């Protein structure tokens, strides 16, 4: 079995994000990029599946030269091979899914893991689109995954509980926090990753259906106010929560 994991290279959630002078992209100065946190669950699940059933794992990332860092991390965690779909262009979600679907098809992979969303643009859609384009089954927001021959049983996180879903391979699984504890890249893994080659494939221009025309920062937080320091302030607090904040 060939197991694919699609991984994205995103700004560290701890990084302070500024908008660049064109008004529609991120200013990258001083911003460190990391493996998309949800994709780490995808990598771990791919590795666990391989350890259980054998097979071959491949990580695929779409982006520029710097995405290699994320692919290298996947290799260091234990993924066997890596492909960079190289582009400097902006790809909207559908364009990303089309490029990934083509690569997954070329790799002949019947089980594909994605993070449930990418924390850079938060569209939460690429996994599902890719499944549709490939005509694969798809289970999203998975917190428990089990494979029995070609049958998948997966728990999905839903509001207030879990939904248990059964489907068949070939399939796309999008992973949620709680599915597993991603392993650390060990020093030996990092050494081994150094020797592996990241295959590069240059992409043609995308045919986007959406375009980013601007970025805005959220309005600055209003300063807090202290209405008292003991229990005598409770009635006022309740009144404000009800009438001003309208949360109770």
């Amino acid at each position, binding site marked *: 079995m060939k197991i694919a994991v699609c991984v994205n290279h995103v700004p*560290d959630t701890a990084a302070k994000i500024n908008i660049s002078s064109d008004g529609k992209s991120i200013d990258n100065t001083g911003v*460190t990029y990391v493996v998309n946190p949800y994709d780490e669950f995808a990598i771990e699940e791919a590795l666990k599946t391989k350890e259980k059933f054998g097979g071959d794992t491949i990580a695929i990332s779409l982006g520029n030269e710097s995405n290699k860092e994320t692919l290298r991390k996947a290799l260091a965690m234990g993924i066997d091979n890596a492909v960079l779909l190289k582009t400097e262009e902006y790809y909207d979600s559908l364009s990303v899914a089309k490029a990934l679907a083509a690569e997954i098809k070329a790799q002949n992979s019947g089980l594909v893991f994605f993070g449930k969303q990418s924390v850079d643009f938060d569209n939460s859609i690429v996994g599902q689109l890719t499944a549709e384009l490939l005509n694969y089954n798809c289970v999203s927001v998975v917190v428990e995954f089990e494979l029995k021959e070609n049958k998948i049983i997966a728990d999905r996180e839903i509001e207030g509980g879990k939904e248990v879903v059964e489907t068949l391979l070939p399939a796309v699984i999008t992973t949620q926090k709680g599915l597993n504890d991603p392993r650390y890249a060990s020093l030996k893994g*990092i050494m081994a990753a150094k020797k592996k080659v990241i295959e590069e494939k240059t992409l043609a221009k995308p045919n986007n259906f959406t375009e980013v025309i601007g970025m805005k920062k959220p309005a600055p937080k209003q300063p807090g106010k202290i209405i008292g320091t003991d229990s005598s302030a409770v009635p006022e607090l309740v009144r404000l929560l009800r009438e001003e904040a309208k949360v109770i």
Partner: protein
Amino acid sequence: MFIGVDYFNIESLLNEEERMVRDSVRLFVTEQVLPIIENHYQESIFPLSIVQKLGELGLLGITFPQKYGCAEMNNVTYGLAMQELERGDSGFRSFCSVQSSLVMYPIFTFGSQEQKDFWLPKLATGEKIGCFGLTEPDYGSNPGGMMTKAEKVENGFILNGAKMWITNGTISDIAVVWAKLDGEIKGFLVEKGIKGFSAPEMKGKHSLRASVTSELILEDVFIPEKNILPKSKGLKSPLMCLNQARYGIAWGVVGSMMACYDSALNYAKTRIQFEKPIASFQLIQQKLVFMLSEITKAQLLNLQLGRLKDRGEVTHAQISLAKRNNCEMALEVARTAREILGANGILSEYPVMRHSANLESVKTYEGTHEMHTLIIGEDITGISAFE
């Protein structure tokens, strides 16, 4: 995730695998060490369960050959790993320093092939733990005067003596013990449980509380012939080990400094006194700038030290200079952070008092601050002030 302190973009001087290792250890410390450390420190226990994890990650004997199960990475990587571990706690870094530089190094350097093949892979995974016994109750800064003696007997040696202040002693499977054989210092591998050998833990420490410190007591202990380190020769051998460990300490304390600075900076920005954040006061800014300057200088010192070591060009006096400077400054940085935090600085809710107390040991072990002054002094004047 902790993003580190890097005012001079030293990041750009590291290669990809050096950065990857640093980030991996940083994450490990954030997730596995920081949540448990305060409690272990207060209770004065070393979390033994972490040893296997350190082994899995590859942090035990980073620089040794792959054939012994090690990562065979460079010294800069080793340094960065020690830095990140010590951001967690000096006790964890001490564990790794001892296992790697004071146990695996002497076995690798002075051991027989048989000793290497048997011990190194087990020490690398953490299946076995080791310690290094040089210091004695009456011989600290002048280990050359040690009283522990080995006597040649049929098929081996008889060891007698006592060691003190030995990190990991009580939890060790193997002790590298230095003793005089016909007046010459030699290394011996003393295995746990052997007759006449005990390693009681020392109690009452106010520093390095999450690290095990022990006595080693040797009363007519028979050591088989195969357990002498055949290539060890005189005081120079243990001093070579100390050089490795001191190198790791010079890096490690930068981790303590980062933790303290990070804590103090965040505190200063949010603590309001006189209706302003205390970060707005000149005296506080001066303290923060002092801390950042010392961190930056120590980082650059370490990186060049590591590059020299990787090229095989480093001198012992250069290592002494880095150990001496960085430990002293780390202690100053920790104390300054404590000042900025006011009374909160003494609480276990913040890491600064723990680091500050730890660094008192770190400044003293592996050669005291004064002894490193004298080592450098001798190097530049050609005159020894201590021999």
